């Protein structure tokens, strides 16, 4: 120990007292980056209480009129309703599609390949993905060809600009986030439990329903909350696949901010969206903490 003190040339006691200063200094650049988001957020929080009219623009005020609009203006609450509806549909279908994949991932010998298939779309450019869906769903696209060939429809169906297209693209976007938390929990469940249930005479289905499924509930909850919050804040899907015609909250916000230039209304809608989404994500974080074998 004496080597340390002499090498550095600072008395040990003084060193201890001031040791935390350079350490906090390490955090400063990162704190500043995150703080810039908070500063920006505080500004729109303030703006959300301002008033606005088409003639005079924004006026400084302390008014809740932009928040009240959510309950009274049909344009506003319909957007909230559409957002919730699409999020519920996407999350439900995502759960049905994703849970079996998570199960396969947890028992398969070829985990690496499966993970690769899941992670690739996750990291792909959002517009590339959206473009792929445009090509698939266009009037001369593969989906319409198959539908006509098999005689389901006679003329091409207009998918683009509808909620169906938005739901499909969103599903593609959120599936990895549904699969991975569920798989993480399934992987920690001891296979001996299933084996014991089957050994005691349960069918595989019963073993799954009575043993595996209840134990995987925290992962299921985590995946559901995460995908629900991602669907709520989706922007590219309604913008590109919905062509701006599927009025989710993000589209409403974008139109208020960039077309109508009604910043107070757009700010208030942003605040509501942040509160809804961060509430869901806090629930997600709690669900993750309650996983079996996690601390």
């Amino acid at each position: 120990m004496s080597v340390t003190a002499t090498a550095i040339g600072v008395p040990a006691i003084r060193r201890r007292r001031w040791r935390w200063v350079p350490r906090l200094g390490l955090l400063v650049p990162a704190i500043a980056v995150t703080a810039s988001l908070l500063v920006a957020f505080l500004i729109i929080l303030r703006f959300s209480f301002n008033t606005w009219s088409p003639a005079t623009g924004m006026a400084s005020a302390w008014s809740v009129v932009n928040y009240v609009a959510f309950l009274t203006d049909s344009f506003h609450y319909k957007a909230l309703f559409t957002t919730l509806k699409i999020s519920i549909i996407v999350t439900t279908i995502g759960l049905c599609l994703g849970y079996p994949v998570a199960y396969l991932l947890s028992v398969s010998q070829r985990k690496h390949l499966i993970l690769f298939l899941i992670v690739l779309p996750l990291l792909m450019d959002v517009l590339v993905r959206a473009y792929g869906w445009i090509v698939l769903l266009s009037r001369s696209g593969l989906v319409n060809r198959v539908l006509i060939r098999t005689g389901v429809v006679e003329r091409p169906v207009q998918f683009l600009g509808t909620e169906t297209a938005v739901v499909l693209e969103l599903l593609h976007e959120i599936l990895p986030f549904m699969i991975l938390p569920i798989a993480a929990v399934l992987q920690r469940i001891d296979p001996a439990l299933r084996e014991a249930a089957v050994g005691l005479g349960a069918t595989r289905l019963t073993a799954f329903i009575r043993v595996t499924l209840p134990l995987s509930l925290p992962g299921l909850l985590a995946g559901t909350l995460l995908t629900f919050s991602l669907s709520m804040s989706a922007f590219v899907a309604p913008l590109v696949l919905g062509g701006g015609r599927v009025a989710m909250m993000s589209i409403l916000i974008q139109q208020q901010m960039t077309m109508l230039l009604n910043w107070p209304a757009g700010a208030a809608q942003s605040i509501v969206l942040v509160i809804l989404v961060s509430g869901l994500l806090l629930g997600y974080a709690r669900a993750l903490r309650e996983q079996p074998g996690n601390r």
Partner: protein
Amino acid sequence: MRQRYRDDGGTLLRIWCGLVFAFLVAPIAIIVLTSFTGGETVAFPPAEYSLRWYEKVLGHIVDAPGLKPGLATAFLLSLRVGLAVALGASVAGVLAAYGLYRFRFRGMALVRQYFMIPLMFPQIVTGIALLVWFSHLRWLAPIARLIIGHMILTLPYVILTVGASLEATGGDLEEAAVGLGASRPRAFLSVTLPLIRQGVGAGAIFAFIISFNAFTVSYFLYSGDALPLPIWVFEYMAYFLDPTLAVISTFLIALTLAAVVALDRLVGIRRLTARS
């Protein structure tokens, strides 16, 4: 005797999962196939295959029809922003992760949560909040707006990845170096940093991919002078839906594939997903 219990999930599960994988891969496969079409439209399946749209894209590199900057300009801007973000987020992220994971201090858990705040924000709100704020900061260079916006998005991932590396490495070797007379910065640079270089590399690649592909935040922060590639693609899409985009998208898919393989080599795809 009862057959030994084999937990492979059964045939039905495999078929179901196969369909889900088809769903995940379909848009990607369609784009790649469409890029080789010989026809005029993105109709699928193509009647004939050729490389004509690849030639056409080569012509778009300098200036594209109807779009102010050419493809190369947008690509280079995205590259510049991505590299700046990867570097900036790595430096800030490594310093912060080192401060957070190596030393214990009061309020540490709170600071960790503070760094995760950007993940709680819908990206559209991040974009709009910065748009409103930056409209008051007219002196800020257009490219700097994008870099700041992307750094906010990527920093949490870098801190998590580097922090995981630091936790896995432990502090014993660095303490040994300090005990033997090295200064703290010296011990960090020559002992700890080489040990966590894979985590740092993964964080930097992650930051680059997120920045390169970022659309939502860029949508509110770009300008004519700083127009990143995803925005270029979006604007092109508004005018044309010809197979040109399929060619560009194929290129971007190849780039993402390379990045995923690189990440896999660095930290292993399994650890990557355990964090996300």
